[in-house]
């Protein structure tokens, strides 16, 4: 990557054909819209090591692949969902080295060696994470498509702000859309999980 380009280019600008950053990246790693001369680059894969839900994986990925697409298409972890692919819905939320990120907005190849936790990695065997259990018991979903992202955001929120007061939850969870609008139950579930986790501490 040339220095003048952000070390974290948006995946969208690159995949969209490089009009914005195309000149800058044409010489290097990423694909430009210029066609033939980058054809070999486009067909190439990059090796990547990720720790996904505790398992160390060696992958060969298309360098344009988002972390989300890599998880879903290469690793086969389909809990994280693609609702908008532009960071607006939160359905793709995962933990990256313990911090919540929108996996659709970042390239997989930028995270070599890092640790990813998805909703599949929360339970301890058959024992669900308190947030998962609370989402079940409070019926904090309908179709369930946003649920993985809601749960990952909630898990991170309760890590960041243990004992968060109930009235702060709606604002903190507003980055995760739920079109079925199970919002009342989502905040009840998170408040309840927060209590459970406080008792466990």
């Amino acid at each position, binding site marked *: 990557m040339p220095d003048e380009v952000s070390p974290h280019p948006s995946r969208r600008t690159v*995949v*969209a*054909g490089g009009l914005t950053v195309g000149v800058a990246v044409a010489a290097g790693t990423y*694909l430009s*819209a210029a*066609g*033939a001369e980058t*054809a070999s680059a*486009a*067909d190439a894969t990059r090796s990547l090591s990720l720790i996904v839900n505790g398992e160390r994986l060696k992958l060969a990925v*298309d360098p*344009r*692949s988002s972390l989300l*697409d890599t998880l*879903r298409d290469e690793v*086969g*972890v*389909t809990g*994280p*969902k*693609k*609702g*908008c*692919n*532009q960071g*607006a819905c939160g359905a793709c939320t995962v933990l990256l080295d313990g911090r919540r990120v929108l996996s659709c907005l970042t390239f997989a190849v930028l995270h070599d060696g890092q640790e990813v936790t*998805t*909703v*599949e990695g*929360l*339970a301890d065997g058959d024992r*669900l994470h308190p947030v*998962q259990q609370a*989402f079940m*018991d409070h*019926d904090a*979903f*309908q*179709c*369930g*498509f*946003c*649920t993985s992202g809601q749960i990952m955001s909630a898990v991170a929120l309760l890590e960041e702000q243990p004992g968060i007061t109930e009235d702060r*939850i*709606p*604002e903190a*969870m*507003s*980055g995760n*859309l*739920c*079109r*079925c*609008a*199970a*919002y*009342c*139950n*989502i*905040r009840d579930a998170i408040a309840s999980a927060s209590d459970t986790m406080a008792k466990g501490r």
Partner: protein
Amino acid sequence: MTSRTEVPESGIGAPVNRVEARDKVTGSARYTADVRLRDMAHATVVTSTISAGRVRRIDTTRALAAPGVLTVITHRDRMPWRSTPADTGYLENRFPLADDKITYYGQHLAIVVAKNLEQSLHAASLVDIDYEVDASVPTLDEAMPDAYTANGRLIRPPWPQHLVLPPGADPQAALAGADVRTDSTYRVPHFSHVPLEPGAVVAEWSGGTLTLHDCSQDVHGHREVVAAVFGLPPERVRVLSPLVGGAFGNKTDVWGHSLLAAHAARVVRRPVKLVLSRKQVFTSTGHQPPIVQRIRLGAGREGRLAVILHDTVNATEMRGDRPEPAIISTASSYAAPVLAVDAKIAKVNIGPSISLRSPGDAPGSFALESAMDELSYRLGMDPLELRRRNHLNTDPLTGKPWSAKHLLQACELGAERFGWARRTAEPRSMREGGELVGYGMATAVRGEIPDRARAEVEIRADGTAQVRTATQEIGTGALTLVAQITAAGTGVPLGRVSVRAGDTNLPRTAGNAGSRTTGYTGSAVHLAAEKARRAAVRMAVTDPDSPLYGLADGEVEAADGRLFHRDDTKRGETYRALLARHDGKPVVAEASYTPRTSHAVATFGAHFTEVRIDPDLPRVRVTRHVAVFDVGRITNHKAARNQAQGGIVFGMGWALMEKLTPDPVSGRYVDAALTDYHIPVNADVPDIEVLFIDEPDTIAHPHGSKGMGEVVSVGVAASIANAVHHATGRRITDLPITPDKLVG
């Protein structure tokens, strides 16, 4: 009668967790886009960037040369479509890639298939298209002068687009003779369904048979269309709809991308996955069209309606006639001796519209319930009292009495819980902490659209039961519903009931649309479960080795996986023991359900909303909402409450923020993204109290329950708009109610 506030702990009504809940919180729930098949290729559709004209030239050279690309298909290729859209039941009046003409922005112009997703996305960007651009008619306002009564192929079941009741009445004269009149025009913009799951399909051919994993609200309906389009017998097409990530109407029909993916899979001889981008969802899977509605009410001074006139014009696509049924429930709402409704359409360069949660009724109720509120102010009468005085016990549309209607009780209960009596009538008369406070209300009615349903229930020798029906789980709790009804009917504990659904290999039932699942599929399951239990009882009472031998069938009951004597519960045996003596064979029963037609069947509701508005920065905040629904017996109080709250939030979105805006020149939606098309987020949502009348309606359906997915959204926008009027004195008649409409 009082509402039952107590919730049963087990059986029908129990607030049990969803049967698929664990899958949904652990990430193992499977949706269409999660399907991965061996050698699966990835497809991307290329869509038009103009809204009117034709493709002069489409050059696929660069795309075909790009790495990993397997094929690029355009209108220049021979498409395999058979017959005509009308004969196949395909929603659009033109098959995808059928010709070079473009009638809307986002129309599919090519499908690119590559080995991986990134390759297909990249190659799609390399398809060069040269357009011949025609003048576009992008907005309803522009098209309005040419409005007409639909006369082409109608895309939904017939409903009267023009009606005068009683026939021969003179509505204009009735209006002229009324003591008090209102005359207002209401507008709703393009609304989008925005399920969180974008349309997705995985197509695979094997020996001339097509397997289509598709997010579908109706697998059998999809199969019929797909088979007809490809000229195949239906049994050569299998449609599987795993869990559906929200639908709200935009997955009721087969869309072009599913046909294209199926065709592409045959071309490349590999399974093909196609997932629409979020932007494409806005143009590829329908929307609710904009509608202009004029309502005129005439009433006597005592508050009894003399006449209702309701005229609508909605935008429709260039190639099809789809009137939005905003007038469909007007006749069934209030006791007006004279009624006239009329629906027209006007052609615009926008893609096809389709049913959106509570089609017709949601936008129609915004207009009618706003108009009733206006009339209440003209009369100086409480809006709730006005509704009481115009209550209907018989449906004027059909002339039949309703199977059950507890709307007045719903109104009383809601008013009490909400504290409606605290409302002072004068607009701007209630303030708290510097904010304007407004109370509004509206009622809701949604007529049922009958359908047939079928299900199969099996009681097995291992003590379990299985229910099989081709219903889909779109988030409404369908799987849990059929499991609970099976458990109740057979006496097999819920935890031992399994469900198979979402597959054309299973019995065809009503699509999960039009609030049909609970009433129709639920009834078929109820009948099948009863039939299975009765068959097992018959086996027991005729089996000399059974402790129940010799009893009359009616003396035997079932619970906890066991059949027993009604009056001596110790006398009995388990299904397991009974079936073990009969070669371990299961008892299988299938049932079909067709509703009776002696009564009109509808669901009802009453909404009460509190809004708070800063007078200087008039952003509307809904701070409280109380709703009471009359939908028969509740099958699962937990899921029902959730669905009701969700429907109310849906209505909040329409009322306050949702809007798709066509660019007035190009016809391109300027806000086709979740960053611009705003739907409610967690912090937008107040406490929502939901109550149910919870009285079985066994005239409507044998198990006494009716579907509620739509009625819960009906009336919400009006209730909010009426509260905004009460708070501010401003009557906003065009949705959404954004701050700019309240400034100044």
